């Protein structure tokens, strides 16, 4: 039994269609798990189910060996950080952080000591007497985090906590969140739609689509080895080629091109996919060997550190990137080589 277990969780707002359908996730103690997906995929709903803000119509939530499904939100002791930070506008930073502790009927010196400690961790010590509207976005974010951490929650739930910050601060904050999370060893669920943010911070990622989990794995495996077409598309695979299997590791495309694939496991799929950056683009060599496609450059786009080429081939439009020192003109005939280790079958 894992530390957190969601078993067959179902959520429905209208009683007819399920927003979450038989959702299962298991999290180990101290892990940071991300829920990643496009808007409307059910990731925030899942987080709110864990928090107790949404009632389920079926399924079970176990945390630390205890059934939490029917426990009301205020008795769960999970810290939550909202996208809007949701600071209490009429209370100072100190009072915001103290709010949860005062409800726990702790004595004054314990409260003060714990607040002092958490404000030190989040670097907010000089701002205790300020009101939320006197703080910058990053500071508000840290107040929200402090307020959730100070109650020493069993779980930390973060709902897109970085999406309201500017790009540079976002990168700083996510490193900070990660280091605080590791330091305190607190099991954390992190909701985001930003894959870079998600990969950089998580121990495990659940990619969600339409109320279901498409793939639940380490960031490395999700990035390199997507298991479904949806996951592949979501994390930047842009080329898809339907294949038919001829023998182990050998496949044939619709136009007769032969492809060789190095499998990582027991992939059964026959849709080959590859990232634009993994395709090698060269001037045409006339003949097609295995894993090669002939084509003609349609559009060239400058990306800064590379060029992106939209290439018309007999297998449809392919997208490849190439280095800046070897430029292909639009209209030029090229050969695309798809390295066998880089092809993923979904």
């Amino acid at each position, binding site marked *: 039994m894992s530390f957190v277990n969601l078993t067959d969780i179902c959520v429905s707002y209208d009683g007819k269609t399920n927003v979450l359908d038989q959702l299962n996730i298991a999290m180990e103690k101290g892990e940071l798990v991300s829920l990643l997906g496009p808007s409307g995929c059910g990731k925030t709903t899942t987080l709110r189910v864990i928090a107790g803000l949404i009632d389920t119509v079926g399924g079970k939530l176990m945390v630390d060996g205890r059934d939490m499904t029917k426990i009301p939100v205020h008795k769960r002791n999970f810290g*939550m950080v909202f996208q809007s930070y949701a600071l209490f506008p009429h209370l100072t930073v100190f009072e915001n952080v103290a709010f949860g502790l005062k409800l726990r009927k702790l004595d004054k010196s314990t409260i003060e000591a714990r607040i002092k400690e958490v404000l030190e961790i989040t670097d907010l010590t000089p701002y205790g007497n300020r009101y939320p509207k006197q703080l910058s976005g990053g500071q508000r974010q840290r107040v929200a985090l402090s307020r*959730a951490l100070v109650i020493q929650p069993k779980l930390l739930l973060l709902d897109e906590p970085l999406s309201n910050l500017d790009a540079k601060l976002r990168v700083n904050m996510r490193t900070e969140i990660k280091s605080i999370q590791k330091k305190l060893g607190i099991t954390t669920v992190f909701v985001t739609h930003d894959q870079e943010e998600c990969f950089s911070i998580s121990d495990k990622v659940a990619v969600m689509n339409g109320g279901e989990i498409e793939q639940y794995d380490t960031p490395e495996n999700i990035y390199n080895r997507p298991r479904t077409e949806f996951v592949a598309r979501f994390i930047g695979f842009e080329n898809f080629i339907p294949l038919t299997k001829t023998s182990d590791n050998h496949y044939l495309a619709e136009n007769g091109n032969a492809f060789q694939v190095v499998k990582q496991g027991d992939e059964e799929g026959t849709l080959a996919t590859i990232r634009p950056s993994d395709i090698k683009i060269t001037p045409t060599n006339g003949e097609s060997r295995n894993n090669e496609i002939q084509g003609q450059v349609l559009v060239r786009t400058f990306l800064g550190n590379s060029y992106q080429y939209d290439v018309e081939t007999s297998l449809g439009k392919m997208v490849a990137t190439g280095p800046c020192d070897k430029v292909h003109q639009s209209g030029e005939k090229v050969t695309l080589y798809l390295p066998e280790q880089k092809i993923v079958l979904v």
Partner: protein
Amino acid sequence: MRKNIGLTIISGLVFAFLFIPLLIIVITSFGEGSTITFPISGFTLKWYQNVFQSETFTASFKVSFQISMIATVLALLVGIPAAYALSRHSVRGKKLIKGFFLSPTVVPGIVVGYSLFQFLVISLRIPVFQGLLFGHFLISLPYAIRVIGSSLEQFDFSVEEVAWTLGCSKIKAFFKIVLPNITSGIFASFMLAFINSFNNIPVSMFLSGPGVRTLPTAILNYMEYYYDPTVSAVSVLLMIGTIVLMLLIEKTIGLSSVSK
């Protein structure tokens, strides 16, 4: 610049149009003549004295104040939870309910007054004071729900949810987190409802009875028999009362937060 001068003149004229009649009333209240005349001849304070000595005005002021105060407080007690429920939960037929609560502001006052008269006085035979109170409660309720509802709409409900996650029960969170953040809305709706109720004539007229009448109906009644500057004096006192009230709001929470 020329445009600005034009605008200044127009707004000056509008202001004068609104303000001069009030000024004239103030002046006439000091006139010595026994009818309201302008310009006045002589200066006296006897009409003010008359107001305070007149049983009609002091008694009706008391009634008005009591009715408006109690009705407004009741309207708030009902209106705050109602506005909260309407903005927080997706209630079935929300639009219909909202429309119903606002109907007394849409339906002409005379119709509201007449139907309340039919219902409360004729059918139910409710005592006059209670009837008046109920009528005023009814016309105050829309203000409470409307104004508090709009300040709840601006309130981020995740602030309330975060209080729950920190261990606060829903009822406690409502008092500790939601209420402190809508105080200006509550204050504003109190003022609006109170002033509206205090000035109301159509409902009061129908529901007044022997010995129990509100100040506006008393003034109206008085004017039918006597046309002396006592009425001007009452008006001036009411104006002063309103100004003091407004100054109080300005000092405590600022007028801008009320009109928001």
